[in-house]
């Protein structure tokens, strides 16, 4: 009996200590996970800031050997690319999401839901290959259009899923209120449901756009890159991410430096996008 007491006491201390150690370890893991984030931000900001000036936004890249210059073409190029991508991804995503939440409780709905999930897991480079065979090959040259289409495809799953989830969050009573007034279902969905869910859907759209802005792989052999000023969607176009890739690999120190600056500008661009959306969505819903 006394022996049992001792044993159970021993176990009690052991389990208390184990619990304390394991809980501390989870805290350490959480801290460790933040370290790379801090490091990446630290280097991007400290290295990128040295070349960050007005020229970077308004000037064109200089040839090898000449220092200075900017990436005006790449900044505009990235914006054009995500514009084309958005023109495809946003309507397809929102409409598909609407279908899934409003009419998607059938077999077809489940399949589409499943496929959007699967699509979100397909590597972006594979989407690039498909855009190449579908657009670049028939057009016979690289183009902003091909790159934009690849980005558009990549946006679809994010926007679809957020749209579906946001619409599902709209209380059923609101919908019934609309229907009870004799408003047809489609009008109720557009004027009441989508309007209520708009803020959440905008967040999904923003997420899709900012992810697209950071994509490189699907652009390598679709939009290709361009050292000159071009806004034509039928021609190859420059982008910040492809510049970062090319300049990071190059043997010229000056270009390496500019790669860091481009990375910083890219992060700023993405943050700006998110800020912009936040301002838009906030002003609309001041009363809440």
């Amino acid at each position: 009996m006394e022996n049992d007491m001792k044993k159970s006491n021993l176990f009690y201390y052991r389990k208390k200590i184990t619990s304390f150690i394991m809980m501390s370890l989870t805290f350490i893991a959480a801290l460790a996970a933040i370290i790379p984030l801090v490091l990446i931000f630290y280097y991007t900001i400290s290295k990128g800031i040295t070349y960050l000036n007005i020229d970077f936004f308004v000037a064109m890249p200089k040839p090898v050997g000449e220092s200075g210059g900017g990436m005006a073409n790449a900044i505009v190029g990235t914006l054009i690319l995500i514009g084309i991508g958005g023109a495809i991804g946003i309507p397809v995503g929102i409409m598909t999401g609407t279908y899934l939440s409003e009419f998607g409780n059938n077999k077809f709905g489940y399949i589409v839901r499943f496929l959007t999930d699967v699509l979100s897991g397909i590597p972006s480079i594979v989407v690039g290959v498909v855009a190449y065979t579908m657009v670049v090959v028939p057009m016979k040259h690289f183009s902003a259009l091909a790159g934009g289409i690849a980005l558009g495809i990549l946006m679809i799953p994010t926007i679809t899923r957020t749209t579906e989830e946001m619409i599902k969050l709209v209380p059923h009573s609101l919908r019934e209120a609309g229907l009870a007034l004799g408003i047809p279902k489609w009008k109720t969905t557009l004027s009441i449901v989508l309007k209520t869910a708009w803020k959440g859907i905008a967040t999904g759209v923003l997420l899709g756009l900012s992810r697209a802005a950071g994509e490189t792989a699907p652009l390598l052999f679709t939009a290709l890159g361009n050292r000159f000023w071009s806004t034509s969607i039928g021609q190859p176009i420059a982008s910040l991410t492809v510049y970062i890739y090319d300049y990071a690999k190059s043997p010229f120190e000056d270009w390496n430096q500019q790669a860091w600056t481009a990375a910083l500008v890219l992060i700023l661009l993405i943050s700006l996008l998110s800020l912009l959306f936040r301002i838009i969505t906030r002003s609309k819903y001041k009363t809440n």
Partner: protein
Amino acid sequence: MEIKISVKNLEAFYGKNKVLHNISIDIPKNKVLAIIGPSGCGKSTFIRCLNRMHEVVGGSIKGEILLDGEDLTKTDPVLLRKRVGMVFQKPNPFPSMSIFDNVAAGLKLNGVRNKKLITPIVEKCLKQSALWDEVKDQLDKSGANISGGQQQRLCIARTLAVDPEVILMDEPASALDPISTTKIEDLIFQLKKDYTIVIVTHNMQQAARVSDYTAFFYMGEIIEFDETNKIFISPSNKQTEDYVRGRFG
């Protein structure tokens, strides 16, 4: 009347929100105490203070709770909960464990690993909770694959296996059908020989049937505490009378 738990000037909070005001009550040993009152009156919070589950959901308390004369607000909750078991409103067996392992869970969590010791305890507890005959041939089935009433008795068996001194029951039959409810009530009657039981219920007939003592809670305070017969037949407080007569709540 021997006292098992003595609560002195207990106050309980959620954040800055005070939900229990100045509660003092002596809980008698080997009896059933029923806590009644309208919803939101703090009855669940009160029993969750007795095994310090209140702080798990981010609450805090002030005051003294003496278990056999020892202030339980100052002991280790892990040790305390071995002595003060709890059965919850909704049956919550562990779905990833078998029926056998569900009952043995508390023993294993407290370091008993010897199967020769565990097996008889599991059998005894399942018999005590009147579940043995129904599940003895399917002990390796998942704890989630039996009916709601059986799950709740499984949870009671699981609580008994740790050999507690006090069992807290938070509306244990509210999610069950009438037949299962009767079984649980019979069970409570059996168990009070060996255990001190505190049961929260919103069902006054149930309180009248199973308990020896009843405390009426209202707005976070004890309005009246007395023998069950007294509370239900001739309550001394007007509010208590209105409540047990069904005039509000």
